[in-house]
């Protein structure tokens, strides 16, 4: 049975009935001047900064964004339940206004604006295009999803190959297909195929239904086409399209939870290379990166906005494994077109981006002196007062430098013996995997910090994509995190609880023994309790209980202790 997949906030069936009723009552629905005024006021307060006064997507902040804010004048909308090329329904626009667009600067407004304000602003947004003057658009009927199963996901993977999704999205879904370097949107701005392993960046949402909708109706304005015609032509069935959506959904490692401490598990021997299967077993920590927007030239559109960090140590050496998506091992002649388009798009507030590709870069930094306690160096490469002990890797030529940094690009090689630090980088299927290994105790402990077990060692990261013109300064940066090397579990961990238990029990027995030996103590507790709360408030039952206790061994007299506060509340 076919049904319409609605947005989660309200069922589409209800929406359709309401729509039909409205259409029946008011054949041509026009907004009142009041609605437009309200929408305009909301728009001018909250939206113009990015979307511009005239809805052209050219607000003050627009030039710093990639993807750019929507140009409402052409009424081309990515996220729709309607066919390719059709206008979005009001519910479609509302979904984006409410939830925002992950992976872009568009935030959700549901908690910030009232429902009435959101309705008014949607009406106002539509007034930027004459295309909305016609008949309201109709959603496509989406059949129900089949149940997710391992076989279904395998089928989805097969169809993914058959439909050649990899041409853009790559064999492993990391957005590194052969056509990736040549892509632009309808406004001639550069655009990357979505990295399907990072669902938190999916513009239309990351649920299976969201993915299905994107494949089914396409993402208008982008290179992503609609696959409805492929079903109509009976090349695949609708169920198979759902399988592709389920397969894509399965590519995600789950929404990453950002933790401040990266744990370096203890292992018998750290792996020698980043593709070692031991790394798959190791716990992965997600570290978000943001554009470096403090030191000139600032960079608002970073290519690498997150990395996965794994760490292991064996008591002798610490090994870090860093993985991040990157569609190219830079420099790559195939990506020249990309950087040229990027250079004409990004803002040149701090000097034009030269369309020249450099290597990919990755930097790991620690405080040069770990004895400074928790006072960490300035996060952008440290400063003169607190330098950063730094490992700088570049892809071409493949090289890792060890040195001391006193700021971005302020790097002096040679903090201890460079041979202390080994590295290996592997690029495959749109991903860099970099392993860096160092002995816990450097050869020259005065020149480089010692990595001790059982303490939190500050660590921070920076990344740069050479094919996007990124450098040591123009790139992405992380905040300070900490790495904690698991210490071996000492015997005291097992012995101490037993000792503590025995001591406590012994002390308890001593107290009891002393109490029993004392004359007259048997009646002490009940009497004292009633004195405290005055005899009038001592219930009969309390007196009875006290009297009974008076003739029992002292050990039992301990019981009312815990009832002392409850007793006076009994009815008098």
């Amino acid at each position: 049975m076919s049904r319409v997949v609605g947005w989660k906030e309200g069922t589409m069936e209800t929406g359709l009935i309401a729509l039909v009723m409205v259409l029946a009552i008011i054949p041509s629905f026009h907004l009142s001047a009041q609605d437009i005024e309200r929408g305009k006021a909301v728009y001018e307060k909250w939206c113009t900064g990015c979307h511009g006064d005239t809805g052209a997507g050219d607000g003050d902040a627009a030039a710093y964004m990639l993807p750019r804010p929507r140009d409402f004048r052409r009424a081309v909308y990515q996220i729709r339940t309607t066919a390719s090329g059709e206008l979005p329904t009001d519910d479609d626009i509302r979904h984006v206004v409410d939830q925002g667009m992950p992976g872009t600067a568009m935030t959700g407004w549901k908690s910030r604006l009232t429902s009435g304000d959101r309705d008014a602003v949607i009406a106002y947004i539509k007034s930027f295009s004459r295309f909305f003057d016609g008949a309201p658009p109709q959603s496509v009927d989406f059949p129900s999803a089949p149940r997710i199963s391992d076989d279904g996901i395998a089928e989805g993977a097969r169809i993914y190959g058959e439909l050649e999704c990899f041409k853009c999205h790559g064999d492993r879904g990391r957005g590194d297909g052969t056509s990736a370097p040549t892509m632009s949107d309808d406004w001639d701005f550069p655009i990357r195929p979505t990295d399907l392993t990072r669902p938190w960046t999916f513009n239309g949402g990351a649920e299976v239904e969201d993915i299905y909708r994107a494949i089914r109706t396409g993402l208008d304005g982008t290179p992503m086409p609609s696959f409805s015609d492929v079903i109509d032509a009976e090349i695949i069935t609708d169920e198979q399209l759902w399988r592709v959506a389920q397969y894509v959904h399965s590519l995600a490692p789950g929404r990453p939870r950002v933790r401040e401490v990266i744990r370096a598990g203890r292992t018998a021997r750290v792996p020698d290379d980043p593709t070692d299967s031991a790394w798959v077993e190791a716990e992965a920590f997600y570290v978000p990166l943001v554009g470096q927007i403090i030191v000139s030239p600032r960079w608002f559109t970073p290519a690498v906005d997150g990395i996965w960090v794994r760490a292991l140590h064996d008591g002798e050496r610490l090994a870090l494994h860093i993985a991040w998506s990157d569609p190219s091992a830079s420099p790559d002649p195939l990506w020249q077109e990309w950087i040229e388009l990027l250079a004409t798009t990004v803002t040149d507030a701090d000097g034009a981006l030269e369309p020249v590709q450099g290597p990919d870069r990755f930097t790991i930094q620690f405080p040069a002196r770990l004895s400074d306690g928790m006072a960490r160096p300035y996060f952008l490469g440290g400063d003169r007062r607190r330098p950063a002990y730094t490992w700088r890797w570049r892809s071409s030529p493949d090289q890792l430098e060890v040195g001391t940094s006193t700021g971005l690009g302020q790097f002096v090689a040679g903090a201890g013996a460079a041979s202390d630090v080994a590295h290996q980088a592997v690029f495959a299927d749109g991903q860099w995997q970099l392993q860096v290994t160092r002995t816990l105790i450097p050869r020259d402990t005065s020149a480089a910090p010692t990595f001790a077990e059982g303490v939190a060692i500050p660590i921070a990261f920076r990344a740069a994509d050479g094919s996007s013109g990124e450098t040591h300064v123009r790139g992405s940066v992380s905040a300070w995190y900490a790495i904690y090397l698991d210490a071996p579990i000492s015997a005291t961990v097992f012995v101490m609880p037993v000792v503590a238990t025995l001591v406590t029990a012994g002390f308890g027995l001593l107290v009891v023994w002393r109490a029993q030996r004392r004359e007259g103590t048997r009646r002490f507790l009940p009497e004292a309790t009633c004195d405290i709360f005055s005899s009038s408030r001592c219930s009969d039952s309390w007196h009875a209980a006290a009297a009974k206790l008076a003739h029992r061994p002292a050990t039992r007299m301990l019981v009312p202790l815990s009832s002392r506060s409850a007793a006076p509340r009994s009815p008098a």
Partner: protein
Amino acid sequence: MTFDGTPPANPAIDMTEEPECVAKYADGPVDPVVVVNDGMLANVFIRVTAGLPAGPYPIPSQPATIDQNGCLYTPRVLGVMVGQPFEITNSDPLLHNIKAVPSESRGFNISQPRAMTTTRTFKTPEVMVPLECNVHGWMNAYVGVTDHPYFATSAEDGSFAITGLPAGTYTIEAWHETLGKRMMEAEVVEGGTVSVTFVYGSTT
């Protein structure tokens, strides 16, 4: 449709990612931006822009067709009437997407992962609507959407014919994707044939 002088060289296309397409070109694939044969210019879209009696004109039920073959569009330039079926075929055994990016009407972006045919229509006149394939960034075509049937595209030998025009004086416009537009007046008499020559060239 003539071209005086030496036509600009057409750029070679790096199609190595699609060996099945490369195999269709003995001398290697070239992007046919300016096609000149013996001084005659192909792929010019010609249409009447003024002098026509008021419409509407009957819409042909015969579709206008475009094919994707060897990772290029054939024809590269064509005309279609508003409402006329526009048939898009993929003759390649591989994925193309066909994206129409008009500014006067709604576009579309559809996938054709293997040999198949899809039909679309345009609702508003627009000269020209760009067509592109995002899987193969070099693929471009142009569709002239008109509200009358008096249009043509110059053939490989530069010839074109607009037939069935009633007697009258008309403005005729020629459009080429890189060489631009030309305009001419033409007077048509009942039952007669008028020859019009547009001149493009490396010096004009």
